[in-house]
């Protein structure tokens, strides 16, 4: 930690300022903003689920604005090709050379809107960049600018003509975040802000300030990665993940990547709290968004109206907290 140019306190304060700045643009949705920041600090990707019109795009744009990062959006459609995402090689007739045209994936923050509308082949084009943070075009790897974060959205209502994300792809997302309707006060405030001296219904993001640079975000990620995790806490995270594998009502549980994600997200959570160590409460706080997309419900539980969150809450209730 001493090698970083940012101290823990500075990193934590910066994260808090970013959170506050985003909140100016995206009114309400405190939990979503917090969880997105956790993913950013942990260097992970987020899958956001919610009905249209709740501010998913706004969140990404506001985040990009506050970290002075590049932002790109891909609208996933059934006819989208992998090359439309990653880029391709074009032959330049004039210069008689092959030129690489980089796709929208070469950005800091990538919004993959309605990711489940594209077939699995196209969805898988994101796998390499999410995991390796590089794209291979014509056999040559091209690194994407760092920090890189994918925020994919999916609509829970429309099931027709959609392609559910394969488990391998779901596992690549650090968190799955639910974005819900704002409260009455939040919505009233948002309507007042958006309609005040505005043409159309676009949010005015020009008022948002850039709080950090992409380099600073990278340093914050380093600070988060250096946060201490005691063996007992590590053991707690692993026990939770393993408990999902034999849990009654779950078709399958989370793999080892679930344990890794729990610790990474818990570190980021501790950083947001301004702590230089992780304690079991951090694990509990991030457990649902980290694990809910890594487990699959048994059909009978789905029929009875249970969700992954219900069963994960039961897992947490039955898993002993660290014994010190």
């Amino acid at each position, binding site marked *: 930690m001493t090698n970083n140019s940012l101290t823990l306190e500075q990193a934590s304060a910066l994260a808090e300022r970013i959170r506050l700045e985003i909140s100016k643009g995206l009114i309400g949705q405190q939990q979503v903003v917090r969880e997105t920041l956790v993913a950013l600090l942990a260097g992970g990707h987020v899958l956001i689920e919610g009905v249209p019109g709740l501010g998913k795009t706004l969140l990404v744009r506001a985040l990009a604005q506050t970290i002075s990062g590049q932002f790109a959006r891909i609208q996933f459609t059934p006819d989208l090709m992998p090359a439309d995402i990653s880029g391709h090689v074009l032959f330049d007739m004039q210069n008689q050379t092959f030129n690489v045209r980089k796709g929208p994936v070469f950005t800091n923050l990538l919004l993959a809107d309605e990711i489940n509308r594209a077939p699995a082949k196209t969805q898988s084009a994101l796998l390499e960049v999410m995991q390796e943070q590089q794209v291979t075009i014509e056999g040559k790897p091209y690194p994407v600018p760092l920090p890189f974060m994918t925020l994919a959205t999916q609509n829970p209502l429309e099931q027709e003509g959609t392609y559910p994300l394969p488990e391998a792809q779901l596992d690549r997302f650090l968190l799955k975040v639910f974005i819900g309707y704002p409260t009455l006060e939040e919505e009233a405030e948002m309507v007042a802000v958006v309609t005040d001296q505005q043409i159309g219904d676009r949010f005015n993001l020009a008022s948002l300030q850039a709080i950090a640079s992409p380099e600073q975000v990278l340093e914050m990620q380093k600070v988060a990665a250096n946060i*201490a995790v*005691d063996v*007992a*806490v590590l053991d707690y995270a692993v026990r939770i993940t393993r408990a999902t594998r034999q849990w009654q009502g779950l078709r399958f549980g989370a793999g080892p990547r679930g344990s890794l994600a729990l610790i990474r997200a818990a570190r980021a959570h501790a950083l947001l709290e301004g*702590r*230089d*160590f*992780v*304690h*079991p*409460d951090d694990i*509990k706080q991030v457990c649902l968004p980290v694990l809910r997309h890594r487990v699959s419900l048994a059909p009978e539980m789905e029929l009875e109206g249970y969700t992954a969150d219900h069963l994960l809450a039961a897992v*947490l*209730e*039955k*898993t*002993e*907290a*660290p*014994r*010190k």
Partner: protein
Amino acid sequence: MKLDDITTLIRLRTPWEAADLGFAMVQNNWRGIFPAWTLLLFSLSLIIWLLMPSDYTGYIPILLWWLKPVYDRILLHIYSRQMFSQPLSTADIFSALPGLIWNTGLLGALTWRRFSASRGFNLPIWQLEQLRGTPRKERQNLLHLQAHSYAVWLTVACLHLEYTVIFSLYALILFFDPTERVWDYLVSAFVENLDVEVQYWGSLIYVVLYTLTVWLIEPFYMAASFSLYLNRRTQLEAWDIELTFRSLGDRLRGLTQHAFGIALAVMLALSALPPAPVFASEQAEQEYLAGEALPAEDSAEQIKAIMQLDEFSQVRTVKRWMPKEKDEDKTDKNLFELSESVQVLFASAMKGMLWIAVVVLLVLAFVYRRQILAMLKPLQRKAAKQPPPDILFGMDIRPESLPDDIATACRRLWDTGQQRDALSLLYRAALMRLTRHDHIQVQDSHTEGDILQLARPHLAGQRIAWLTAVTRAWQEIAYAHRIPPNERIYPLFDDWLNFGATQATVEAQA
């Protein structure tokens, strides 16, 4: 009653098996039952028919039905003697009648107990055990414990059997009546007043058929009820075990005396067993059919020849009135009237039954009003209060495991370099206080943060502040392995007394 003389195999049966045994008893001993039973029932029926004024002959079946407890007593008398190897002659049965009428609670059975659905099952208590008053009631309650519902269902089943038999008998007459006069009588019985002669014959047929029905079903009903009763007593008094022990004792005594004779008899019996036939039956059948089998063509010719005979080739013309126009047809009108009157009859019966059901339900609702009101109240089930845990997070938090002066003990540990142990002891003491005195339900899955959340509504400002500070210090030393500074920790030791003081201590100090 000598159990040794019992003529059936006594063992514990299911209630329906026992009822079956009763039916089998009647089939097996019908010679000893039906002569006297026939004579008695038909005589009674005849006497009633003769004595009844002609205007009231239609009520005779009801009277015959009402007198069923009388028949039951006679039948039970026969069965109870047969069961213990004392066959009765018809004269014996007739001579027992006065005793059966006077000493078996017949008056009650014909009046307020007439509608008892388990009358057959209860009768042995009156007649054979001769119990009266409270002992009879207690005995009946005991026997009813596991057999009452079966006795009731047996009565219901036999009642339906009676309906089946009487309808079948009517149907039988209809099938064998070429004049259709019985059908006309049945149809007109519902729609118009009959002349005296038709009514007389109709009533006579009804009485005969009903007497036949009772004659057929009642012995089976009573035998099944008696068998149910015996089975219940076997269950209560272990008759089967007693009999087994007795026969075992007899056999052992006999064996010692006639061991050689028995062995010889067994050997002879085994050698005399015939071998099983293997081909015999098949061969016999083939030989038997060979003489009469004809080829197909010959058979057809033979059949044709037979059909040419006068007996099979007669043609008879039957003329019937057929409806020309539906409205003018009398038969159809009659049928319509019949169906309408049957519907009205059925509707009235159903209406009456529904009203009775409503009244019964209202009475029951009034009788059981407390239970019903109790059911309507919202459930006020309190969660069972769990005893406070002894061990939490691997820490022993029993009061006896902690030192008397916690603050001093913690400070001593802290000053001697055992900072982790000192904070562990302080946190343990805090948990003990929360679980035992503040009654906070802490589970194994609760983290330190969860406990703070749980404690927040229960603790006053200073106490929750102290607990928060201790929790933070404990988390720091446990998970970050960092020792908090003395100036942060010493006040926590000092304030333990404020946190840990019970209400009584506080009042005493005040």
